[in-house]
């Protein structure tokens, strides 16, 4: 008799283990989907280390993956710590474009960037290029002009851009769809609640015949 209950208990615990494994498998599939890729800078215009004669009006950084809207920061620092970026950088798919004021004296320029990677990690870095001839902005007064943005640059809040650009609604909508956003969170929360609910019900049903061993308890 006792060996029979033991056997039944074993069958039951194997069944429970299989259920647990199936749940874990389902969880694996749910958990596996939302991760996004980590971005890497793949190219830029001007190129890193390039020497150019003509001052560009925009700097483009290209990543291997879509960059997330918002959070992007680009700086352009010229000779003598002068600042040349203008307004907020624009994100278009994998490309981040920053407007620059007409560049100043010939010399080395450093472009610093910090963008939010598709996988949610901030990535930062820099590229450098050399301007071989003085640009249109290389006038004596630009010393005073460049000191002003440098002083306010520490504030992370963007200074009001000269030409306010309406947010790219279609890009934002596309990204929201890609993230799954709220819908995904709701699914997760619901899954957790269902699990907790099942656990509670099973626990209460099992607890009723007090003092019995779990293997010999009522059917779970």
């Amino acid at each position, binding site marked *: 008799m006792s060996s029979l209950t033991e056997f039944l208990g074993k069958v039951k615990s194997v069944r*429970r283990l299989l259920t*647990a494994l199936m749940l874990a498998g389902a969880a694996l599939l*749910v958990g596996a989907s939302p*991760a996004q890729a980590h971005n890497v800078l793949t190219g830029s215009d001007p190129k890193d280390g390039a020497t150019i004669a003509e001052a560009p009006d925009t700097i483009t950084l290209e990543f291997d993956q879509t960059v997330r809207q918002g959070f992007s920061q680009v*700086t352009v620092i010229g000779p003598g710590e002068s600042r040349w970026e203008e307004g907020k950088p624009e994100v278009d798919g994998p490309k981040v474009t920053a407007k620059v004021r007409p560049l100043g004296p010939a010399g080395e320029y450093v472009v*610093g960037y910090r963008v939010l990677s598709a996988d949610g*990690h901030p990535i930062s870095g820099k590229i450098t290029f050399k301007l071989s001839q003085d640009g249109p902005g290389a006038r004596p007064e630009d010393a005073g002009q460049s000191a002003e943005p440098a002083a306010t640059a520490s504030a*992370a809040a963007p200074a009001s851009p000269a030409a306010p650009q309406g947010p790219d609604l279609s890009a934002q909508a596309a990204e929201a769809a890609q993230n799954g956003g709220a819908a995904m969170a709701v699914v997760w929360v619901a899954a957790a609640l269902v699990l907790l609910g099942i656990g509670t019900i099973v*626990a209460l049903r099992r607890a009723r015949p007090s003092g019995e061993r779990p293997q010999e308890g009522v059917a779970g």
Partner: protein
Amino acid sequence: MTVTTDSAPDPAPAVEEGARGGAAVRRLMVFGLVSSTTAAVLVASAFTGEEAAPGIPMPGPLVAHGLPFVRAMIDLAAVAVVGLTVLPKLLGFGAPDRTEPVMRRARPLAVSLAWVWALCALVTIVFQTAELNPGQVPTIGMVIDYVSGVGAGQGLLFSAACALASAGIGLLALRFGESVPAEMRIVIALFGLLPIPVTGHAVDSVWHDPIMISMELHVLGAALWTGGLLATMLFVAWDRELLASTLPKFSKLASVCLVVVSVSGLVSGLSTMALTPGVELPGALVTTGYGWLLIAKVVFTAMLVPIAAHIRFRLLPKVERREGTAVATWAAAEIFIMGLAYGVAVALTRAPVG
């Protein structure tokens, strides 16, 4: 994180005597795990920190050091919870008069550590929001924006929810004992680990899903291995009779985990590097911080193998004969190295691949 394991008096005098003798070694295990993880994550993060971009404000030292630390504490708390929920399966249900006193001490610890896990996950969300908004104290609105916009935030939130569910069902287990199915507790705790790889890297290719599954297996295997060893050693190592029936079961689990963790770790680490543009594989292992961290993890795993083999093949037969062994000391060394690997793992999830 304070963990006291020697609070409740044991009913069996022999166990009590042994437990007193082992208190120092148990404290050493817990302290060793926490300190080795903390040291490894701080050193490795400093080594592979985000490159400073000229003219762009970077996160302050509190976020730069606090974020990896709290992120590592999520892992440790989760590992301990997984270990404590696996413990009843390792102990078996055949001799409740022996195992019940052990479980009576393990269950409340599982509940409090699940709370630690949930709180660390929530603090990590706040820190990651702060990381994206350097120089600002994150407001609730910013945190909500972060969670609704970034998958890593949702993953952490889900992990915190699972930790809370784990605490909830742990409370039920506290009240109703082992009639709350152990499998249910294990699955909920493991469920909470699944979103953790989502907070790390991924690659965009047809191999994305296989690599993610490999990462999931890595996380699950590592947690079962480390957590199982921790729980077995903290609660069973000084009861020879119980250890003789528990350690063989853990040993089987550990062998499987060792294989799963090594293979999945190599697969996901190397393929993530191979599929990242601009990363040339053999060379990048020694030229990038990511490669160095990967090598460090391989070295730690290689260090674990002889210790695990010693316990498995030399000490286990003696343990089964109820002879006294130095298994706890060896396990303490193993746990220490596992802590180092966990610390490096956290830095690895945050290090730039390229």
